[in-house]
């Protein structure tokens, strides 16, 4: 808000001062409204300019719909062990490289890590029977094998975000010999907590996951999007549009808003069987913490994780509350483990200004100390 103090207000008290303040405020508001209105016609042009990912990259591996990107830094690669980013199957992974000054990946690239990102692609109806086993022991294992072969390193560092963190944890427990260090961001592990609304809504008394998956096949992006919106209906459906209208004339606000909204609305469907396994085995039966989660022929035992672990979680996360993430550090056998609870939300943990300035340099330093 731009508020101007008019010179004739000096020395006035009581009703006259109040009246002057009212007048000034109304004039300022009128001018701001004019600015807001005049910026609306430029909105489509600004939307057109939104890019998905900012750090230069190349495709180095493809399998079915999956693509692996390698990020190209300006300097030489300092560490032999490659870094692999694993994102969720729900949204697109470019949130990790959102825009200039809001990119998690650029922190690692600039520090001299050889960085790779798995883009799972958009599943079609043909992929509805793909299971978590196909993703973890199929695609993910192939990617990690490829990275080891390409770089000559015996191990790969993993950074998993949200559902990608759960997949990375499962992978590490099954293939510990391939993983150097494990970094997790807002990762659901212990689903017994009823703090988050998603955990409540997937309660078997109210949600028949088999009927849902059998009828729907792949879980539509619109369904997932509306479930995420309903976690905070007032903030998402009322406050957000009001904020946009109030700040539409501010270029910095609008740019951040458009980048975030583009990503938030860029959902993809989830393969039906993966959704069934996650809902049933994790949300409803909480098998991961009990070391009884079946992945294909294997049973995931978190005690088999022995590598260094950095567990990052967001204090105000409405999607994956800290209570869902925190127990992991006590469930693994790693001796070198650390957790950081950061004052941010689920997305803010990756892209907020404070996280970019303070958290990510700290995370890069943590990994650098443990890398060759």
């Amino acid at each position, binding site marked *: 808000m731009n508020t101007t103090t008019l010179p004739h207000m000096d020395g006035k008290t009581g009703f006259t001062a109040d009246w002057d303040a009212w007048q000034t405020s109304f004039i300022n*508001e009128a001018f701001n409204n004019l600015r807001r209105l005049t910026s609306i016609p430029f909105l489509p042009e600004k939307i057109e300019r939104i890019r998905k990912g900012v750090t230069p990259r190349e495709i180095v591996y493809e399998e079915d719909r999956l693509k692996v990107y390698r990020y190209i830094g300006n300097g030489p690669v300092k560490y032999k062990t490659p870094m692999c980013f694993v994102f969720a199957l729900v949204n697109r992974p470019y949130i990790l490289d959102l825009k200039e000054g809001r990119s998690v990946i650029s922190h690692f690239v600039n520090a001299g890590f050889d960085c790779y990102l798995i883009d799972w692609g958009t599943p079609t109806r043909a992929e509805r029977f793909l299971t978590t086993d196909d993703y973890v022991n199929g695609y993910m294992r192939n990617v990690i094998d490829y990275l080891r072969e390409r770089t000559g390193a015996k191990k790969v560092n993993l950074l998993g975000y949200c559902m990608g963190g759960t997949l990375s944890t499962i992978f590490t427990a099954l293939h510990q010999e391939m993983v150097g260090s494990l970094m997790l961001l807002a990762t659901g592990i212990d689903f017994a907590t009823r703090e988050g609304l998603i955990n409540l*809504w997937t*309660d078997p008394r109210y*949600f028949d996951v088999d009927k*849902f998956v059998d*009828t729907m096949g792949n879980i539509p992006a619109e369904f997932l999007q509306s479930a995420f919106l309903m976690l905070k*209906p007032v903030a998402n459906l009322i406050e957000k549009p009001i904020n946009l209208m109030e700040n539409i004339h501010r270029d910095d606000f609008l740019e951040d808003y458009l980048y975030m909204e583009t990503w938030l609305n860029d959902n993809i469907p989830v393969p039906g069987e993966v959704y069934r396994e996650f809902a049933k085995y994790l949300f409803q039966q909480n098998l991961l913490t009990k070391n009884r989660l079946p992945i294909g022929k294997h049973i995931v035992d978190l005690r088999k994780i022995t590598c260094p672990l950095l567990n990052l979680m967001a204090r105000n996360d409405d999607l994956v509350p800290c209570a869902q993430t925190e127990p992991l550090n006590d469930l693994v056998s790693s001796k070198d483990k650390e957790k950081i609870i950061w004052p941010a939300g689920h997305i803010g943990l990756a892209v907020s200004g404070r996280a970019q300035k303070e958290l990510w340099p700290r995370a890069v330093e943590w990994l650098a100390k443990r890398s060759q």
Partner: protein
Amino acid sequence: MSDNTNKAFDQAAAFQKLWMDSMTGMAGVWSQYSPASPAPEETRKMRGGMLKVLTETWDQFMRTPQFMEMMKSSLNGALDLRRFARDGMNRVHEQFETPNKTDIDGILLAIRHVERRILDRLEGFEDRVADVKDRIEALEETLQGQTRPSKQPQRKPAKATKQSSNK
């Protein structure tokens, strides 16, 4: 009264409570209105207060069993409708002798089944090859560690390994 009627009354009561709480809370916010402050700032403050009240009451409401019952019945209704529509379409496809979604899913499942069997077999081979490789490596290490003994004892463990791996 039937169980369903009771549920409907409970849900209506929960919904009514949500709006009562929201309205009471929002009215409470307006009691803090200060006419001395400029209207736009004060209105913004009031709006913030009202939205906070709404956020809290909706969050509480969405955690109630009544809300979840409502969610369950509306989701089930939508799924039943979809199934009903699909069954109808399947019958049409059947009459025209064209493949329907169930047929396609059946083929996909059959492919998945064959794929799974091949992968399981390959995994088995992979494990056996890895086992043989380990044994060969162990043998090579043993042979390198020995200080040039006669050829006869060197061959024996190799034969034994081959036999055991075949088993």
